[in-house]
């Protein structure tokens, strides 16, 4: 019984009430994953579970048993920043920095979804290849709230990363 968090196995907690969020923050001391509401409304606790974005506050730790979790701490390559992290700095895609890890994790997974052809509410051609546009990003990132108002910078940062990936 173990959960692989950023490549390191950590034991599944005895108490089945423990959320993946609390496991990460309080037991693994990986506090980069944030808590903004504990009820799935804000997206601050977004992490990648087997590469897909999930709200760790609504995920029980036991549900992650045997699976792989990537948090903001595990996104970069050692000391180097992940391109999305660098793009957020370049475009000032944050102020207080609290929703930021969730935004970045969501952004990384969201681009994969979009590029993998998963349509959204604003996708015109449901069968087509996903096209990265500001409108698509806004729709797909709307589950990650930001109160400082860094929305424009976040969208620009994601567009930059998408452009770099395409190049």
């Amino acid at each position: 019984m173990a959960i692989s968090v950023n490549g390191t196995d950590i034991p599944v907690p005895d108490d089945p009430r423990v959320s993946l969020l609390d496991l990460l923050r309080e037991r693994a001391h990986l506090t980069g994953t944030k808590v903004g509401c504990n009820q799935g409304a804000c997206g601050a606790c977004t992490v990648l579970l087997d590469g897909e974005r999930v709200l760790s506050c609504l995920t029980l730790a036991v549900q992650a048993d045997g699976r792989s979790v990537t948090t903001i701490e595990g996104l970069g390559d050692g000391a180097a920043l992940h391109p999305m992290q660098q793009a957020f700095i370049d475009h000032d895609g944050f102020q207080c920095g609290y929703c930021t890890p969730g935004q970045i994790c969501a952004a990384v997974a969201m681009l994969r979804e979009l590029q993998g052809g998963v349509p959204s509410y604003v996708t015109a051609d449901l069968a087509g290849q996903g096209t990265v546009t500001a409108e698509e990003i806004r729709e797909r990132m709307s589950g990650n709230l930001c109160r400082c108002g860094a929305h424009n910078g976040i969208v620009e940062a994601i567009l930059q990363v998408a452009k770099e990936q395409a190049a």
Partner: protein
Amino acid sequence: MSRVQNAVIGSVKTVLGWMPERWLPGGTPDPLIGRHGEVGRQASRLDGPQKVQGKARFAAEVAMEGMCYATLINSPITRGRIARLDTAAAEAAPGVVLVLTHRNMPRLEIVPVMSISNMGAVGNSALPILQDDQIRYNGQVIALVLAETQEQADHAATLVEIGYEQAPARTRFEEAKANARTPASILTEKNQVSVGDAPRELQQAPYSVDNLYRTPGHNHAAIELHAVTTAWDGDALTLHDATQAIAPTANALAKLFGVRREGVRVLSPFVGGGFGGKAFWDHQVVAIAAARIAARPVRLMLSREAVCRMIGGRTPTEQRVALAADAAGKFTAVVHTGFSVMPTYAVCPEQYSLGSRAAYRSKTYQFGQRHLDLDVVPNTYMRGPGESVGSFAMESAVDELAHQMGIDPIELRRRNEPETHPLSGTAFSQRGVLEAYRMGAERFGWDQRSAAPGTRREGEWLTGMGCATGSFPYVRMPAGAVRIHLTQGGQATVSCSAQDMGMGTSTVQSQHAADRLGLPLEAITFEMGDSDLPPAPMAGGSAQTVSIAAAIAAAADKLTGELLRMAGNASPVAGLRAGEVRLVGGELVSLEDPARRDSFHAILSRAGRETVTVTASASAPLEMLKFAMQSMSAIFCEARVSAVTGEVRVTRLLGSFDCGTILNPKTAASQFRGGMIMGLGMALTEETLFDERSGRIMNASLADYHIPAHLDVPDIEVIWTGIPDPRSPLGARGIGEVGITGVAAAIANAVFNATGKRVRDLPLTLDKLL
């Protein structure tokens, strides 16, 4: 605030009026104004790498040995008393360490409520905290449950049995009007002001508008929940807090718990959004008390529901704005009065009429605010307190009058632009709002606006444009110190207990210190977020940047004097005084004869010193009294409204700001945008839904209180005049609050232009447009 205060401030202003300007700080413009250096450069946030990697450590993220976790129980009734309380089952539950109620809470005094002149007064509420069985508002904390894990604490909290005896509560806005209070002053301004006979002018004028505007309660909704991690070691207290008021919190806690101030340490290096909401509330006190009784470290993070119900937000208002104009479009009456909720135990008067007093020239004026006393969580300051909602009313009214007169709304504002402060006649330090309008109109394409409402339609969408003025007064806090520690190697550490909720405090002050000390940015370390550092005032009123800047300037002057003293008689700068040199390139350089110079390194070496340290306090902020000083903006909006559903979408938003020197264009643009986006939320979706029958907030969650999400936010353009204010440190004025002001009015005015429908009740939800 009292009549005595009105008299004192009035006489200080009178005396200052007699004094020559050069006697006052700011009388001689800051020599850094206009100098090209680090200030004004697009620096990325210095704490960016920490934040994007999740390494920035927030209050609830500090690990401690033996930590236990707390949950609060909040009152589900509004007024009454706890008649029955049984904690036995909770105390017997697995892992429970302590159940804290009014029965076993230590007896504590009331925390002095916040004030800008008293660094020990920080409370948001004048109510006792867990001191008796009385319930005074819905959401009041009535118990804390402490356990080994959060899950155990949360479960045990459900086992506390509480019976209530309910009493009648005051919860209805309309009913409370009969007993409205009329305070003598609003913050530092006299409340009721009448000049001339405004009612008569309203009756006689060829053009007039006279309407009521309503704004609901708003929630700060910072994404980080209020949280503390706290521990006692004997009589020494450590509090990791999410706070905008570090030094005042430490001062207040020492007094409250009867321990030495030196033994209290409050740390808050990062705050996950504040907007006025992260100051001193009940949760810090109950957590600290629990930690003392349990003799264990305690972590308490409020639930989102608790944040909504026990941390006050912006209060609801009902405002009357009446304007009259003569045939030439000159105002003959400006009236702004109204009601807002402010319980006697709250601190924020929601000063919605203050901005209007400095806005327009008129023949007559009438201003005054009345407070309603309800049994609710104490309201408090929230971004753009007063002006945010006040500008909605006033700037909607200006638009209504312009429409009635058939004049362009910018032109109507231009015709009534005051040359000096409309009421006091005080000179403006600098005022470029008309220039902001000119720049904004050109950039936005205002000339494309159709003056006739409801005439632009594409498919189901009606499109319109609107504009409005935003403003917020300049504030510099009357306290605050900074320490500068300079090494022989030319590294400087600048320290004070400043706060950063995302404004970029450390980045901008590092840029400033580099220029002030004549050192490269890399040589500067800015320390903050710790009450052991020299005390900075609280971060509020858009005042922190200039307050700290003034303290850094004072400390740099002192450092200069110290270096000149150490330089000795053989130095090329011997005999010069602090005012006769400037610091540049790691040297003291004579202003008169730049060939006379001596380096920090040489001076310290000769003196046999590795380092030099100075601490100094900022000068008193007398420029605020001598001059009328405001940050201002011209906001432009293009909105479309569905003729089928009434849905409003803001398609374009532009802010043109006049806020003095912009210290860091990158972070400043973000802060302006952030304010404007909060204004967008205020205009379209944000509303604390209050059940007047029960006194309970109905939408205490981020699922039900709707802040703008990505899809709601268009690309927002931000420009500025950049004209330095000759009376302020660095020529800067505040930029944190002004962004939200004017935005709701600009949007409402655009909606009117699109549809011909005037909505005077925020938010502009679709039901009001069908």
